């Protein structure tokens, strides 16, 4: 599945300072209706893109506090968080909230 994964707000520092990643995520489909969810994508990202300090990305089974997750420019809270299912060509953004000024 072709996805675009983007990091911002400093999270790109965890993946060689690269902000935009065009990736092909393969996953085992148990049956036709089985879809890739954000739960699986999180662990795929942690394994394949995060190069350092994984504790700055994941805490427990979800992202660490202070990280916003956007699926197609929409907060994942609105689409079911970890249960959000992904479609071909979706854009997933992980952005750390900023406090400076």
């Amino acid at each position, binding site marked *: 599945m072709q996805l675009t994964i983007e990091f*911002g*707000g*400093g999270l790109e520092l965890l993946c060689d300072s690269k*902000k935009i990643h065009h990736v092909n995520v393969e996953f085992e489909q148990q049956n036709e209706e089985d879809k890739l969810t954000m739960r699986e994508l999180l662990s795929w990202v942690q394994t394949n893109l995060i190069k350092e300090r994984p*504790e*700055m990305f994941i805490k427990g089974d979800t992202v*660490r*506090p*202070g*990280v*916003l997750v*956007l699926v197609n*420019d*929409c*907060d994942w*809270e*609105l689409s079911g968080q970890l249960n959000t299912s992904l479609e071909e060509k979706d854009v997933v*953004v992980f*952005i*750390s*909230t*900023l*406090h*400076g*000024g």
Partner: protein
Amino acid sequence: LRYATNGLEPHMIHRYSRHLVLPSFGVQGQANLLKSSILVVGAGGLGASALLYFAAAGVGKLGVLDHDKVELNNMHRQIIHTEAYIGQPKVKSAAAACRSINSSIEVVEHEEALKNSNALEIFSKYDIIVDATDNAPTRYLISDCCVVLGKPLVSGAAVGLEGQLTIYNHKGGPCFRCLFPTPPPRAACQSCADGGVLGVVPGIIGCLQALEAIKIAASVGEPLSGRMLLFDALAARIRIVKIRGRSLQCEACGENAIMNKQYFREFDYEKFTQTPLCEAPLKLNL
């Protein structure tokens, strides 16, 4: 051209004429603005541009809150301060700049650090609060205080070459805690002092904060509530994304919220975020 002047004095009609001729702003928008009061918390990189545009636009009562002094290493981004004010309080410098471009508005100086003990009293004097601060505990404190008092909060942030902007606690929209119920680890909170910032980036976010607060004050347009602007200056990319609404579980604004004046006054923001409200500046060793 001839307009209903709605109580505006002749010098105001002249000064604000380019606002008055705008069909979507007009005399009513300007009259609303002249009656409004806005508090800017922080006279640094974000506050610098926001304050100047508030003063120019004719916000009736403009408050500035800060406890810092102007330093040479602020000057690359805090365009409201001149070199002549280095070593003097930022509030004094910023207020003087605002008065020099518009002597017809009221500018109020709050030269003090924001704390649980003074926030309710100060915020209650203003219609709209602008968060132009630089650390996580203060952002929680400001948001909670706005929830307790029912004030809209125009919140901006900038670090490095990125900026973020949204409006909290406005017309049923989310508060800061709805988005971030648990504070981030301290290592995730870079400030401009330790992380650096390209000066014009907080300038842009500060201007956008001014715009959004002016829209609320004047009652025009669609406010950036329930949406967040994400700015990447290096790539020249801007996203405006849809964010969650008010959370029923929010400790500050949810159905069974525990936040009230009493709880707010006693809440330990430094312990909650594991970060001091006022950081000692990093010393560069060059």
